[in-house]
């Protein structure tokens, strides 16, 4: 779902590095991405690919030692290098986060109503009573049954799925334009996950919230994302509408990820999963080369001598950073569907 209007979130050439005892580690390198109003973008990649660091850097949530360069504009306001006081006004109001493990993000000694209300009292200067009433509405919005009673529950009295719904209620309390969901369902069972994804979709549909969802689970991406960004070793290697990406992956890493997960109807007796040999590298600096070359079946001298630019590979809004993109032949996933 792309709209012609200006993007709500505009990320340009964002890079993040961390000084460590053993030298600098480059975590994110030149990431650019737009998020349109009411759009759900999925960001996918393995651990260590820079997904979470990218997400955290958007609202200045990284530790002070991180070196962040580039530009992040939220509704026109520059966030990279903004003052802490300015960022504080933005967080929660304009951009909000939910994380993987709701129990570690919730305060165990406050009722969930108080915690949701706190956001409203701080940002919206609501009275305690008004904040509580609004908290009940928000809990209803995220699908918590008998919200009027649950508002007085403590986090330990709720199941994992309910806690994550509370986190979402808190995140959307001030009607942020952008919701960043970092592995929001990874700690949850599939039956609960389906409900959480439904809540995120509902928020987009009802409130027009843009969602950046970060996950390693391609099933979650297929379920919820309009567009997908694939990250590898700190760089965006492919970006495409979800249908295109799954039907015609062009970057070899994307193709590898897709064929590494077991497809419905396949069994070890007749079929092998495709492995991607090697590991995601930890890079001190970003080389002028394809960082996937060492694990890539199609790599040659060119890949090791120059970094491939993110270029149009045909289709609508489909770009990949690969010197030797996959042919647009039917993928294993498509053949399995036939």
């Amino acid at each position, binding site marked *: 779902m792309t709209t012609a209007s200006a993007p709500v979130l505009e990320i340009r050439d964002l890079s993040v590095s961390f000084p460590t005892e053993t030298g600098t580690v480059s975590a994110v390198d030149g990431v650019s991405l737009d998020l349109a109003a009411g759009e759900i973008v999925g960001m996918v990649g393995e651990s260590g690919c820079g997904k979470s660091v990218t997400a955290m850097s958007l609202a200045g949530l990284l530790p002070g030692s991180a070196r962040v360069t580039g530009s992040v504009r939220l509704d026109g306001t520059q966030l990279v290098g903004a003052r802490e006081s300015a960022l504080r006004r933005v967080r929660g109001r304009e951009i909000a986060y939910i994380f993987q493990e709701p129990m570690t993000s919730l305060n165990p000694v406050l009722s969930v109503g108080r915690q949701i209300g706190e956001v409203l009292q701080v940002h919206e200067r609501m009275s305690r009573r008004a904040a509580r009433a609004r908290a009940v509405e928000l809990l209803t919005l995220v699908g918590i049954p008998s919200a009027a009673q649950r508002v007085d529950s403590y986090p330990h009295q709720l199941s994992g799925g309910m806690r994550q719904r509370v986190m979402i209620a808190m995140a959307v309390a001030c009607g942020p334009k952008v919701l960043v969901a970092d592995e929001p369902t990874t700690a949850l069972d*599939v039956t609960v996950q389906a409900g959480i994804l439904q809540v995120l979709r509902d928020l987009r549909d009802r409130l027009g919230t843009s969602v950046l969802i970060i996950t390693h689970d391609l099933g979650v991406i*297929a379920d919820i994302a309009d567009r997908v960004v694939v990250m590898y070793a700190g760089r965006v290697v492919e970006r495409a509408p979800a249908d295109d990406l799954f039907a015609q992956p062009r970057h070899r890493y994307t193709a590898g990820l897709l064929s590494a997960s077991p497809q419905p109807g396949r069994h070890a007796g007749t079929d092998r999963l495709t492995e991607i040999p090697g590991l995601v590298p930890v890079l001190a600096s970003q080389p002028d080369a394809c960082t996937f070359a060492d694990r890539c079946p199609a790599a040659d001298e060119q890949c090791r001598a120059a970094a491939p630019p993110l270029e149009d590979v045909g289709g609508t809004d489909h770009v990949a950073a690969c010197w030797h993109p996959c042919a647009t032949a039917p993928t294993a996933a498509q053949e399995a569907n036939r």
Partner: protein
Amino acid sequence: MTPQPNALEIADLVMHFGPVRAVDGVSLTIPRGRVTALVGESGSGKSTVGRCVVRLVEPTAGTVRIAGTDVTHLSRRRLRPHRGAVSIVFQDPAASLDPRMLVGEIVAEPLRLAGKRISRRERDARVAPQLERVGLRAEVARRYPHELSGGQRQRVSIARALISEPMLLIADEPTSALDVSVQASVLNLLADLQRDIGFACLFITHDLSAVEYLADDIAVMYLGQLVETGSRERIFARPAHPYTQALLSAAPVADPVRQRHRQPVLLGDDLPSALDPPSGCRFRTRCPLAFDRCATEVPAQTAIGDGMAACHLVRPDGTGPDVRTADPSEVLS
């Protein structure tokens, strides 16, 4: 000639931790050389079943037979000769490998525990082919676990589990802590080893795509009890129990075109407490199709092919209603 005993026979297994009824009457048989997946949500008791089988805990009631031997209440000393028949691989290899031991010592540990006194040279000679079998170079024996990647560590766990040539391998979420590309290599490895060596396997997981890839048979667990068992083909094609149907419908497939046409059955979020499970059918509090009888009467196990489903709505011929096609207003209420 007497028929060979099954690799694993569990009968009416009960494991209570104080008031927590983690496992409450599970019966399950794994023939030699078969892979049975035990699936269910967290808190269903599936890992506890695995821990009972390797006797990390002593069951409250019921029996566990490994290769025909009743190991349910054997003392540590009497259990030792049977330890080699069953091994376990855990979810997190970082936590299940001793950081102060060399990989070679870790892999050889089961031999030492079996009371075999072997020279260092002999040990190295036994370990090297094990490492090779799981795709690691022999030099890895002289490394420490922290020097290895997550996938390599899980290979070390598998090598350790297989050195005693067990008849049964318990694999408790062996790929859940790993990235997708590494998961693929560990699943391939388990499939290859299982085919070549022919051990039976109890594959405990919540990852349904891995189940379909690796398992021959499937047992679905809910709140301490099995609700359905059957062949992989039958369960994926025609799940009979409403819980199995909901579980399969909720797992997203990595294909947006198909995924968008699927309608997950949304269960309420709350798995009831194992301290005080619901009366009658334990799934009734979340079941979209529950009716009066479900609260009062424990559903009998209806035989379907080689398996069963424990639901009042499943008819003797194995057919029954499907929560995925039931009236959505009814399903979502």
